[in-house]
């Protein structure tokens, strides 16, 4: 039970931090890509959406190559900040951000794209700065798509296994819920003994989805 609580705490920590980081990256990017047109935009959008369809093991593979001690980025992180992302929960956050990114980016982008542009223009005419327009006009109007995306990204981060297991590995006392289920399975523990773990993760994911549905319904009612 103690192990379960520790795994639960680690999974929640990783997913919550990952969702915050994803929000900070995906929402501004979604806004820019919904508004601006420039050469190579489609390619950038495709690359940002790629983790949605790529096997998580491929994502994990690239992240290990990039972030490993001798990796292109990992080498510098190691030298300048003494930061080792492999076998570290912060590395798992990076993995969770990459795989959950498209789930926030896509709905946020369509939400921004469907806003009545006139309201933004009016705000500009009234002298509001672009940042203020984003914060007080665009963001509130796109909130439905963004909130759904945030919850989906959170649920995806919580369930992330493939890339995470390659980066976080199997650390005693630092297993996420999905990794602990897999470690139990491969170690020949009876499958029944994993029920508290899968119950925990299935309930959390179900709750996230129910919150999305409830939110969407109330938002729809509010708009009517």
């Amino acid at each position, binding site marked *: 039970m103690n192990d379960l609580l520790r795994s639960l705490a680690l999974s929640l920590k990783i997913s919550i931090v990952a969702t915050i980081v994803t929000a900070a990256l995906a929402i501004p990017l979604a806004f820019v890509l919904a508004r601006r047109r420039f050469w190579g935009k489609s390619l950038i959008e495709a690359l940002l959406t790629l983790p949605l369809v790529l096997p998580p093991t491929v994502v994990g593979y690239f992240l290990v190559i990039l972030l490993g*001690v001798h990796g292109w980025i990992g080498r510098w992180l190691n030298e300048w900040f003494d930061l080792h992302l492999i*076998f570290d929960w912060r590395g798992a956050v990076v993995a969770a951000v990459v795989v959950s990114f498209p789930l926030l980016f896509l709905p946020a982008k369509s939400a921004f794209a469907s806003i009545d542009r006139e309201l933004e223009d009016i705000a500009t005419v009234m002298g509001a700065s672009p940042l203020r327009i984003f914060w007080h006009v665009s963001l509130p109007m796109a909130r439905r798509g963004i909130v759904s995306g945030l919850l989906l990204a959170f649920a995806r981060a919580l369930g992330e296994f493939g890339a995470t297991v390659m980066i976080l590995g*199997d*650390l*005693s006392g630092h297993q996420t819920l999905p990794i602990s289920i897999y470690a139990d399975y*491969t*170690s*020949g*523990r009876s499958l029944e003994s994993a029920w508290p773990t899968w119950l925990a993760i299935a309930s959390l994911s179900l709750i996230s989805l129910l919150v999305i549905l409830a939110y969407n319904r109330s938002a729809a009612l509010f708009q009517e």
Partner: protein
Amino acid sequence: MRFTLLPACLCLLALIGAPFARSETISIAAAISIKEALLEAEIAYAKETGDEVEFSFGASGVLLTQIKNGAPIDGFISAASEQVDELEKSKLAVAGSRRVVAMNGLVLIVPAGSKLKLTSIKDLTRDDVKKIAIGQPKSVPAGQYAMQTLASLKLDQAIAGKIVNGANVRQVLDYVQRGEVDAGFVYATDAQQIGDRVKVIANAPADSHEPIVYSRVIVAASKKQAAADRFLSFLGSPAGKQILEKRGFITEAPAKTTTQPASK
């Protein structure tokens, strides 16, 4: 006419059937640490008999789980006695088919470029040693042996927070080789196999862990038990032993009780 046609038909049938009846393909699940030796043995064996062997390599504990769950495996080579004991206990092994295949040693390795200058297993308690890889003790024999050694040297408590579990011993080797961990416990043969990309710091004292014995057994559910026995027995033949020894395994039971690995 009737009497001449029948034998002719039978002869023809026998001729067509012969190659199919004679060459068989068996599936062997084996500890990943013995992989290269078995692949080489298979080539020699296939030349001699025409039989083919398909391997599934992994941590012995993982393979045991697969066999228990009904994986189509004919023979099993485990890197520890525990898994074979359990297969026999649950009546999934052919009674009396168990033999010792080889023996091995456990070593502590560091990445080739390591700047930590570790010289003994006790150095693992130093503060500048951040991560130590061992096989996941729940399923990887090399990890079980490593934990036994650490416990017998009374280091297990001090380094508990530094342990990274590998899914099998070759993953431990990979973690060390890539420099993602500061040190790791692998078999003497693993260190020999990867060459100069890792450095052996110390041999685990042979009395600090259970003897590292690879045992083989035939799976009771197999329909190719005779063919499985032929291949597994080949490993015990002089030709098979020579291949194993070339890869650093010990095939003769030592006269004394010590089983120090032959480190090259």
